[in-house]
């Protein structure tokens, strides 16, 4: 079998029923997709297969044979971050970071398929991805901002949409 991952083609030895996630992480040493559950329940392992978001822990590698896989490592480079990567930094959409690569790729696919900054549509598209840190709102903000085509200042983060600062006592 052959897999093209982030533009590089690899010969694969694993059995066709091996989860794509295990092939990426253990056979190829590409660790951007995270093993959060091996149940399809958390979304941390989502990658793009021919542009479509898929849980790599559920995908038998045999079905990805010949396909183009994109992991988070292929989304942008350190000196040329993709817009959604910039958005996640600017909107503080990653805390511990373990769900982030799955969120990014699901968000990217949503935008590639014409998704807008409509919050409900984003929630629907990313609904199966669990984040235990952020409470999701900044992830939604980041995907929406990318969909809108915002540009991002990477020296500071955005003020929360529903946040007010106040002073309580004398400093």
């Amino acid at each position, binding site marked *: 079998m052959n897999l093209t991952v982030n533009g590089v083609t690899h010969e694969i030895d694993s059995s066709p029923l091996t989860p794509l996630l295990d092939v990426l992480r253990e056979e190829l040493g590409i660790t951007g997709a995270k093993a959060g559950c091996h*149940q399809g329940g958390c979304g941390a392992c989502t990658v793009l297969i021919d542009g479509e978001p898929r849980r790599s822990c559920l995908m038998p590698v045999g079905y990805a044979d010949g396909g183009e896989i994109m992991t988070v490592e292929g989304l942008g480079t350190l000196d040329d971050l993709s817009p959604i990567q910039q958005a996640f930094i600017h909107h*503080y959409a990653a805390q511990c970071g373990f769900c982030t690569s799955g969120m990014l790729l699901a968000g990217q696919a949503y935008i590639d398929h014409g998704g807008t900054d409509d919050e409900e549509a984003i929630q629907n598209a990313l609904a199966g991805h*669990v984040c235990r840190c*952020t409470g*999701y709102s*900044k992830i*939604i903000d980041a995907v929406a901002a990318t969909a809108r085509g915002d540009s991002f200042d990477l020296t500071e983060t955005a003020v929360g949409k529903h946040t007010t*600062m106040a002073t309580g006592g004398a400093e």
Partner: protein
Amino acid sequence: MAKHRGKGIAAIEYPTGMNQNGDPSQAWIKVKPDGRVDVFAGTADIGNGSKTIQTQIVAETIGVPYDWVTYDNSNTDSSPMCTGTFASRATFVAGMAALKAAQEVKVKLLEIAGKELEIDPSDLEIIDGEVIAKGAPQTKMSVADVAGAATFGHGELITGTGAQLKPYSTIIDSESGAVDLPPHSAISYASCAAEIEVDDETGQVRILRLQQCYDVGRAINPTQVEGQIEGGAMMGLGLGVLENCYPYYPGVEHRGGMFGSYLAPGMEDMPQIDTIMIENPSADGPYGAKGIGEMANNPQPPAIAAAVHDAIGVWITELPITPERVLRALEAKEAGTSEPRRKGKLVVFDEELSVNAVSSGGMRFEVPA
């Protein structure tokens, strides 16, 4: 079918740092020959953002740009002791250690600069990477040059160490619970208003909006504080209406082993979350900061419980407030058994849940009458 809306509130407090203190954190800093600053601390970043926060504290305290500072918490060989990232202590306690180490670095930088500039160090300050004579800003020297002079001229290594420890607060009277020292150095406060909707046929409770107000002391990084508050709100929502390891508690049957059977909140459960951050500086935290990470999941469950009562007139005091519990409570209401027992001045709720109803006398809860 009817959907009912309700509102409820809660106000809470939470201690910052370990409950009885006695939890040290330490940091040390070295300055490179070009003035760049390396911080070593043992505080794990579990997503809470302590790497960023402690880096900000050090940059601010020394007076150098943020991007001059590197932060290394990667191992116990190079980093000193830190009790850990819990008890809302990573900013409040560990941040203080970093601050103290930075203060020591600043003193040493000013000493060297004083020698170089032939000015008393107390007449110098550091602003944005430059040592400047107070009142004579044209007399200055970059921190890079100071560090170079220390290394190559004075033969000195500029370092700083910081250790933060509030002594352990001992319970000196086991009868009353009294302690010998204040057991926690800062208490944070918050309030929450919840707006919910209940479907009285399926029992589903949907959280529509959470309006929350937190006294954060001082937001070292307001966006990160928002992140803690928003993330905590969703965890509190889970606690309130979704999550349960033992769906048949006290039974242990059917414990969920997957995200599909253990209901951690998902994106579609999100209400609108409004956050008000009040900065009411703490006397003990770095730059007045308190720790609000943990308390962020505390006020939602009681606010939701009150909102459910407002919506459908029943008190559900076992969490989570599942659809089943809603329907059972509505049945009890229908049957007229949900009202508290009133006797004289006593108003007794939840008698069926009480230890008095379940134990065979080994434990009782008696109210002085």
